[in-house]
């Protein structure tokens, strides 16, 4: 994976987020304050605008720049969390010019760990972590097993999808949905949804890239 992949991934995520606008927005309206889509879109736009600058950087520095930019762009609960994710990935990849799948999986796990720490949250609390933690674990395992990209991406997507859907039956203990108590039951967490959408976008980009 190189910086060009990162830039392509960001573009793919932006496109996917925009394509899911109505759904993501309705989720944060239902159990949040209605701004999650706008926050994430603002973040995507800022990063896509940085493409020229990012292309000059090694992956580690690119991730750090992305994190810093998102930190001052998104705001809300998702801002510091997503920013911490990228900054931590950047730190983890320091000195690695072309991370392989295992190194990337390792960095991603560090990023997820940073979200857990910053948000003081874990699985089962009806947040983005319900998608990110299991998906990241699975990625590490598949990478260690040396799975081929095609099947790896397919399994990762299944895992993200299933866990995103599972947030529907959770009572939130973190984030705004927590204020709703039982009323949040039956609604998917918006952050879990964007995480799943992002995972899908990156997987699809990677496999399409492979196919082409």
């Amino acid at each position, binding site marked *: 994976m190189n910086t060009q992949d990162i830039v392509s991934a960001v573009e793919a995520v932006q496109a996917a987020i925009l394509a899911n606008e109505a759904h993501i*927005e309705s989720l944060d309206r239902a159990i949040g304050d209605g701004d999650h889509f706008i926050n994430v879109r603002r973040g995507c736009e800022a990063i896509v605008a940085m493409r020229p600058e990012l292309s000059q950087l090694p992956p580690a520095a690119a991730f750090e720049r992305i994190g810093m930019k998102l930190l001052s762009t998104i705001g809300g609960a998702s801002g510091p969390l997503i920013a911490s994710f990228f900054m931590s990935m950047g730190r983890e990849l320091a000195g690695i010019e072309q991370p392989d799948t295992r190194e990337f999986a390792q960095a991603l796990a560090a990023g997820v760990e940073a979200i857990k720490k910053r948000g003081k949250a874990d699985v089962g609390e009806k947040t983005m972590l319900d998608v990110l933690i299991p998906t990241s674990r699975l990625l590490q395992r598949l990478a260690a097993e040396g799975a081929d990209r095609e099947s790896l991406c397919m399994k990762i997507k299944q895992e993200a999808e299933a866990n995103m859907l599972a947030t529907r039956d959770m009572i939130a203990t973190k984030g705004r949905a927590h204020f709703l108590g039982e009323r949040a039951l039956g609604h998917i967490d918006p952050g879990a949804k964007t995480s799943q959408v992002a995972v899908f976008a990156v997987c699809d980009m990677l496999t399409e890239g492979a196919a082409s």
Partner: protein
Amino acid sequence: MKKFVNDVDQLLVEALQGLQAAHSDLLELHLDPNYVTRKQPAKKKVALISGGGSGHEPLHCGLIGKGMLDAACPGQVFTSPTPDQMLAAAQAVDNGQGVLFIVKNYAGDVMNFQMAAEMMDRPCATVLVNDDVAVERSQHTTGRRGVAGTLIVEKLVGAAAEAGASLEQCKALGDRVNSRTASMGVALTSCTVPAAGRPTFDIGDGEMEFGVGIHGEPGRRRGPMKPARELVDDLLAAILADLKPERGSEVLLHVNGFGGTPLVELYLLYHCAQKVLEREGIRIGRSLVGNYTTALEMAGASLTVTQFDGEMKSLWDAPVHTAALRW
């Protein structure tokens, strides 16, 4: 969506420019990162900085000035501001006595202010406001929200800071005021986040959301509309169960409108609340009625009770000169 706006993405900056121009004697606006400071910097005192998502006006920018805040960091509508704003504001207003962040207890506000505090190399402390009794306290959750009680914390700590209290004293006072303050609200309509363009929730003609926050989000439960008297009974029951004030104790009663409820109704709520407190043997030492901690154009209101102790009443009475509060 029907709003006075040019370009939704420019709403915040244009509104801040209007705020600054309308209060050019009081306020100074800094853009990119966005923060607002007093026009006349305070002399040698703890610097009080608050902030949060926009859409709650006059909170917080309308509370900058002598006797209250030194700076505020406005985020996008209902979206917490970012650490770079807080760092720049702290840099601008700290004059060596340290910085106190006054933060409403939401995951986003807490994390952004926390990151700013971690990135800052000056003495600083944070008061977390969590006065909303609609949400239970708990170790395992985000805990209670900060709502209209924030203004009271800002006023009392603002007066203490102006009088020369140290950072530790300000922090301790803020925590004490917060622990003696309880709020609860009810909404009759939702509001529309401008960038989203449609109401956050739909609600029927005979329904209300009970135990709401200040972001146009649904409350703890939806119920049928009730006479104001019964609503106030319910709100105060929750508030008093939390504060447990003794008979004869003296309180500040704040009736806060969420933006879309006319004053005539807020005064009616005050009248109902006053009767309940009277019945409970609680004296209203001071009061504040109006739209101070709003959720854009949401119709609804919250009641806040602060149980005075020691110097709190005289801190409330201390002079204040801001856009929204002045005496």
